[in-house]
């Protein structure tokens, strides 16, 4: 277990040149990293806080924090996990300040598609298929949005960020077994929400 976590911390491709340059204070390296991670970090923050305006604010804070803390980052470690941990800590602080109960409770009241879903770009060309895909993706996005925070983040890190279980455990600072258990419960809850909203079986 300790060995597997250590292997995840080790950067798979060795030291990233942009990260090394950023540690020396190179502003171009910062722009390179921002361009590489901007969509992923914004999506992750949006999944956590659910409000685009808050996600934008936290996105800014995350990169300012990166500029502040990059010298303390050990380049032999996994930059993704470090970056997502920074973003997560800022998002959790924000949620605690805004509404302490929001850390565990599903989004109340507004479950309509006018926040996150309305900002999703259309999934691709094609008339009827596009409509079906949009409808399906919309229902799934709404279901995801209504999961409690601890489930939402584990789902987005696993299926959207494609992180390994051990990597997620590092970001969340929890044991691997806890990550698996949250993953299991979040999928079960998602299925339940989808089946309820579809009035029966999960449909293709």
């Amino acid at each position, binding site marked *: 277990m300790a060995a597997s976590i250590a292997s995840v911390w080790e950067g798979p491709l060795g030291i990233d040149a942009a990260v090394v340059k950023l540690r020396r*204070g190179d*502003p171009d390296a*910062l*722009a390179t990293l*921002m*361009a590489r991670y*901007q*969509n*992923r970090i*914004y*999506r992750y923050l*949006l999944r956590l806080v659910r409000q*685009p305006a808050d*996600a*934008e604010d936290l*996105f*800014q804070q995350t*990169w*300012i924090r*990166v*500029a*502040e803390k990059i*010298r303390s980052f050990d380049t032999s470690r996994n930059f993704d996990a470090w970056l997502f941990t920074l973003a997560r800590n800022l998002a959790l602080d924000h949620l605690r300040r805004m509404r302490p109960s929001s850390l565990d409770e599903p989004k109340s009241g507004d479950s309509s598609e006018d926040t*996150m879903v309305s*900002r*999703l*770009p*259309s*999934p691709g060309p094609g008339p009827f298929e596009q409509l079906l895909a949009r409808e*399906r*993706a919309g229902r*799934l*996005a709404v279901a*995801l949005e209504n999961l409690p925070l601890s489930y939402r983040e584990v*789902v987005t890190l*696993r*299926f*959207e960020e*494609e992180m390994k*279980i051990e990597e997620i455990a590092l970001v969340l600072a929890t044991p691997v077994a806890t*990550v*698996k258990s949250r*993953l*299991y419960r979040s*999928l*079960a809850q*998602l*299925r339940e929400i*989808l089946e309820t909203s579809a009035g029966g*079986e*999960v*449909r*293709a």
Partner: protein
Amino acid sequence: MSRLDEHAEIRKQLPLFVAGALEVDAESRVALHLATCSDCSAELERWQLITGGLRRLPTPQPPAALFERTRALAVAQLAQHREHRRNRIALALLILFSWAVTLAGWPIFRFATGGLLSLLDVNFRQTWLLFVVFSVGTWLAGGSAAVLLSLRRQQEGRLA
């Protein structure tokens, strides 16, 4: 284990199977069962619809202006951080230099005033009193110069 129990056990593991979160031996046990069980395979497909859907969820795009705005702020932070670091190093060097000047200046001062030998004198009280006065005087002069320089720099920064 009866066939019914096996089905129940396998189905319990399907969410983690589709999430790629099972240990290797548990994963191969599930895969082996799925190869011969159409009911569990159908159940697997239902889970795959969810995980596949999650993987294909469109990525929300940040507003275009956000990138530039954030980059400017972060670069400013980077520059500020660099300047603070430079200032810390300069301050440390200044302190070292001040101590060197103080320690080296004292014998010269005593020599110039004709009292070099009194460093070894038994009359410590007077010698160390002079040393303290000399050090405090030097440090006050240095500190005042540093404060004046920093005020001037702040003023220049405001004007720029």
